[in-house]
């Protein structure tokens, strides 16, 4: 929102600036053709005031060989012509400059637009990916719950296990859900709890796993934590 707003103000400012420049140049041009001496005078001040460094250094270089002529009239004529030439040059330069600036602006704007577009595309892609992943995450969660239920229903929990005790198993699952390997990655210190967990997993095999091979990848290795906190209701 902010950027879009900024964009508008920028655009308006730019257009305004261009119009102002054009108006100024036209104004100046008309003034010069209308009265030469004034134009000369004002042009000279104009030049002194805003001339680009290059033009200033150029002026004496051009003036010097002509001043060798040493004829006042010619001098004046030359001076006039010179001034005019300079002015045209100046104008051309300014036009060039404006063009350049405009071009630059255009380029910047273009770039900005491209960037915007890229960003938008990126976001769209990310959103899509997020949506896809949310969907697949939903699927993963669904199967995780099913696996949890399948194992829980086979787990004959030993009595009298400490509330804090738990056993971690790492199981390897083949496509189709057959449990290939059950490994105790962290034992509970209670042999009965450990064996009951192992038995529960083996008894629950084959586990409900997704058929989709990409989704199934998430189920190749599953970490299971058995902690007998749940009170079994009769």
């Amino acid at each position, binding site marked *: 929102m902010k950027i879009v707003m900024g964009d508008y103000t920028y655009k308006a400012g730019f257009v305004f600036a261009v119009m102002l420049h054009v108006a100024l140049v036209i104004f100046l041009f008309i003034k010069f053709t209308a009265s030469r001496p004034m134009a000369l005078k004002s042009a000279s001040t104009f030049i002194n005031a805003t001339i680009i460094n290059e033009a200033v250094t150029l002026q004496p270089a051009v003036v010097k060989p002509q001043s060798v002529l040493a004829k006042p009239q010619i001098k004046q004529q030359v001076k006039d012509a010179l001034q005019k030439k300079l002015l045209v040059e100046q104008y051309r330069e300014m036009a060039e400059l404006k063009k350049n600036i405009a071009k630059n602006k255009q380029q910047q704007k273009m770039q900005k637009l491209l960037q915007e577009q890229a*960003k938008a595309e*990126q*976001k769209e892609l*990310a*959103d899509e*990916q*997020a949506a896809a*992943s949310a969907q697949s*995450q939903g699927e*993963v969660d669904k199967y*995780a719950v099913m*696996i*949890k239920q399948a*194992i*829980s*229903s*086979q*787990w*004959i*929990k*030993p*009595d*009298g*296990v400490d509330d804090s005790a738990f056993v971690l198993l790492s199981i390897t699952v083949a496509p189709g859900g057959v449990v290939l390997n059950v490994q105790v990655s962290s034992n509970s210190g*209670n*042999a*009965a*709890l*450990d*064996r*009951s*967990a*192992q*038995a*529960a*997993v*083996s*008894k629950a095999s084959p586990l409900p796993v997704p058929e989709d091979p990409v989704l199934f*990848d*998430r*189920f190749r*290795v*599953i*970490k*299971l*934590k*058995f*902690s*007998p*906190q*749940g009170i*079994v*209701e*009769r």
Partner: protein
Amino acid sequence: MIRLFKILTVSSLFYFSNAFAVLEIEITQGADNAMPIAILPFDSQVTGVIRNDLKNSGKFRLVETADPEAWRSQKVEGVVTGQIKELGGGQLQVTFKLLDVYSKNKLEKEFTVKTEQLRKLAHHISDMIYQQLTGDRGIFSTKIAYILVSERHGRHAKYKFQVADSDGYNPHTLLVSNFPLMSPAWSPDGRKIAYVSFEGNRAAIYVQDIATGSRRVISKFPGINGAPAWSPDGRKIALVLTQTGYPKIYILDVATSRLERITDDWYADTEPSWSPDGKSLIFTSDRGGIGSPQIYRIDIESKQVERITYSGSYNARAAYTSNGKAIVMLHKDGNMFSIAEQDLQSGRITVLTQFGLNESPSVAPNGKMIVYATNHNGRGMLAEVSIDGRVKLLLPAGDGAVQEPAWSPFIN
């Protein structure tokens, strides 16, 4: 900027979810099922005892098949096989094997026993299987003591002190008396029993050695000498005396015979039972209202008393379960007497026996079963109930009425 941030977070989520792709599932709830096991017959007596033990524990379901494929489909967790060989001279060689199907553990043992020891060995094997598969110590080798009262054609009743296997079989008579016998209590090592005898029409507390049969009087004060209970370390016996007129709880030092009065008030206090740590006693008292006995706890050191039971009009004969987290007692709510368990933390009461005249609960040393006396078809019988109330059994007992069963501690 915000947009960029969003993109960053989305992609970082991606990154992390991919990095931790291993699925983690937490399992806290188990099935409330008996564990399927298969016991392949190798000797009818031995396997008969094992089957009976494991089935009656309520923890196992016997699967009647020798087909390994059926074991898989029926989710059998343990398979018991064995062999028995006559060695001559009445000696037998028994080997047994427990295959723990899913953990690939094996339990394999070989024994040489005499024929008459087969039943004992079978209980021992049951204990090993039970422990391997449930993690709890089995109680199949423990004993149950009880009083058997037999009326004989109008003559005086005979009182027999019986000690049987935990399944009720194999009873031995420790003592026969023409006078009432009461309140058997096992010493913590399982070698002695304290009980009350009214020999000569006077109550006295005796301690008898089970192996030798020798006995001695430890308490014969005027009035009541009742309800003996051994401390967990076996050095003291809590008992009830009426030295002050009212029944009061005392503690007797077995070695020095020093007597200490524990409760001291105007109420009737009886049936002391030790906490597993030996620091306090629970007892029955009518201090909350005459005719409505409740369970109280007293700290032996500070003598501070606290009431434990509030639910029901009558709670008596309480004993701790082995882990000290609950008590088991005789409980009356309305008109019905039942065996009930009360969780000490929550105060929640679970009624374990709903019907019949049940009395004198005694908890098995692993805290999983309770033995009690019940009236079945007009006859006093031995019965057991699991601590979760799901398994109830009537045990065989000799001719007569069963009174006051007491479950032994673990016997090594």
